[in-house]
């Protein structure tokens, strides 16, 4: 069976909610049924076959070609299966992802992997603000799984994060790891201001010295035995994180945010 492929015919004028096009919702549908699904776009409802050329048949392996930055909610609450996006994705990519795998070749918008539960998201370009965060007002962001971003990410990555890994090959914006409850964020590039703002627990793993707020305490240099194990777990990734030469086990450790519970840690490569 070949992958079920949606090729965008034109860039729609308004944003489009693509949440119906997920593997578990298409499982038993014919191509004609899938083509007739209505997608909300501003005030309008557009038929899928009006917007996309549809080919292939494997609903558990979806490909979206020519994707643009105004296609929102791609892979919403995906529960098993695979979605590959060629091009950019809009906001709320992989929203509430339950299991399965989503890969994007381009850049993605705001709130990617918002409140993700499990599974794997890979972004080859950059990600917008609030990567793996909670919806506004909610108390729990990403709860599990792994996010890999090869480019840079915006502000508030991992806001209210609860569990799981966010791996960033590029730079992170301001407030990276803000209000984290637990989980791990690794940033190979630079980080912005207010790193770990109001974080309670969790780990920020950095290759470069950050600018830290006064509410983080320097706890000295440490050799941590868990780091080689953590790096070993990245081996299967298609990423620089899998490269043994980037691994380290010697870090400067900072504890914070002391204005909150203060049990979070920032580990900086020495």
């Amino acid at each position, binding site marked *: 069976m070949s992958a079920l492929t949606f090729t965008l015919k034109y860039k729609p004028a308004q944003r489009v909610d693509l949440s119906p096009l997920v593997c578990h919702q298409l499982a038993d549908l014919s191509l004609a049924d899938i083509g007739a699904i209505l997608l909300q776009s501003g005030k309008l409802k557009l038929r899928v076959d009006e917007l996309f050329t549809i080919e292939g048949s494997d609903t558990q392996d979806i490909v979206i070609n020519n994707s643009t930055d105004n296609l929102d909610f791609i892979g919403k609450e995906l529960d098993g299966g695979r979605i590959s996006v060629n091009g950019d994705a809009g906001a709320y990519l992989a929203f509430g992802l339950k299991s399965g795998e989503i890969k994007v070749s381009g850049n993605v918008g705001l709130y990617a992997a918002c409140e993700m539960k499990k599974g794997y998201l890979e972004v080859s370009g950059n990600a917008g603000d609030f990567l793996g965060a909670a*919806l*506004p*007002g*909610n*108390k729990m962001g990403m709860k599990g799984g792994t996010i890999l971003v090869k480019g840079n990410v915006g502000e508030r990555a991992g806001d209210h994060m609860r569990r799981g890994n966010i791996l960033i090959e590029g730079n992170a914006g301001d407030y990276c790891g803000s209000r984290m409850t637990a989980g791990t964020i690794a940033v190979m590039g630079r980080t912005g201001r207010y790193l770990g703002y109001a974080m309670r627990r969790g780990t920020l793993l950095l290759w470069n010295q950050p600018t830290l707020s006064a509410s983080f305490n320097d706890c000295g240099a440490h050799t941590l035995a868990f780091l080689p194990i953590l790096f070993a777990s990245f081996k299967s990734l298609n990423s620089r994180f899998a490269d043994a030469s980037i691994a380290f086990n010697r870090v400067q450790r900072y504890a914070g945010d002391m204005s909150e519970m203060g049990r979070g840690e920032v580990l900086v490569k020495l």
Partner: protein
Amino acid sequence: MLIKLTGGTVYDPASGIDGQQQDIYIKDGRIVAMPTDAVVDKEYDLKGKVVMSGAIDMHTHIGGGKGNIARTLLPEDHRQDPVHRSDITRSGCGHAMPSTFVTGYRYAEMGYTAGFEPAVLPINARQAHMEMADIPILDKGGYVMLGSDDYLLRMLTAKKDQKAINDYVAWTMQSAKAIGVKVVNPGGINAFKFNQRKLDLDEQNSHYGVTPRDILQVLATAVKEIGVSHPLHVHGCNLGVPGNVQTTLDTIQGIGGLPMHLTHIQFHSYGTEGDFKFSSGAAQIAEAINRNKNITIDVGQILFGQTVTASGDSMRQHANHKHASPNKWVTMDIECDAGCGVVPFKYKDQNFVNALQWAIGLETFLLVNDPWRIFLTTDHPNGAPFTSYPHLIRLLMDRSFRNDVLSTIHPEAQKMTSLASIEREYTLQEIAIMTRAGAARLIGLKDRGGLSAGNWADITVYTDNTDRQKMFEKPDYVFKDGQLVVVDGKVVSTKWGTTHVVRPDYDPSVEKGLKDYFDRYLTMKLGNFKISDDEITEDGRGSITVHPLKGEVA
């Protein structure tokens, strides 16, 4: 246009009609006597249907700042419950604290035609009225909140006479466009600002030296003397504190026979017996209510599920914040007036305290004998959203259903309640009293809550069903001021209700002291504080209905 409702079974306690088949005629928005020669333009065959006047919720938080704080605090409450627009209704959202338009539609779709906001802060009254002006279909009104305002407490400290306090209360009611006066944790909200974290009935405010008992006494007297029909609406001391049943009994005794309405009394009926030091005081409370004819109550029933508590009682909300679920909360002081606390709650049937709270509310309903002095509320949204009323009515009217639910709650709570042994089932007439005639009488609404000629035609028609929840969830027809607004539980047309007020007299010289106070301490000038009629009516959809004071001829 003359409308005839033919052959319905009418429950109209206001004129003593208990389930008799009769016709009702509607002309120009009002119910009229059978015309001798006029032609009926539209007839509805209601044979076998139950006809009541439109229901009145006499205590529901539908306007005022705390609602918007709750909405801001709980975006998930709105995200999870979107309501789409239709050709005649507007979009909205929200489960525990719905948006204004959705509030109006949902109330109407249950057969309600009026709702009264019990906590209008004088300083925020304009916002409360503007918010209520956006609630379609329903009539509305507000009780203005006094008792923790610095001006009154200063007057009490300065030993001003009752006449001066009467003038201040009447002036505030007129300025804020109110139909009643409420006091919340008398003096306690103010005491919170002076770092007191509890305040008993006879405990002094550390700054003013005034006790809650003093405040209740002068305010209840003022409300009576200026002639306001609705007795002082009291949210007592020690809300939610185990053992507060004694405070409540003392409050009833202490008022010395003056008319007083004790609101959401379920939250004020807790004892300290048993292994968990938490028990039901409902039997003692009900006995006191039955004995003291000057007291009326509404229950503030809790029902299981997610909601949000929004109260002026910043002292108690602050104390309860650790129970917040989800874990986020707000309490704040509001100028010199009062305070505000918003704490989301999830009442769980497997939680001992919640389960017993549920049983205490029902015990209260069933043990108070006189349905004219008890009112059906959940203190929306504090005990549960108002949309749960049909479920609550079924619990009251159907003993076997009640006992079925009882058998599923926390086992220790089952042991601590006498609910299983109470045989009473409410009748349709008693429901009609609690939710219609009684409420209209309590608030002092003329021409509402009854079906006799001369009343406004607020009418609800139900299909009789032994499943009372189904019956009350989905009325066949709802008429508001003679206009058909709901068919089969769905809004079919909308209109705007009126704002009910009273206008007690005061000595204009009261403003002399107030002006100085406003200039020195408040963010608003006295002239701006007073709400004019135009502000409610000038958009062409709002209107004001003035109700007579006691002793006045209607």
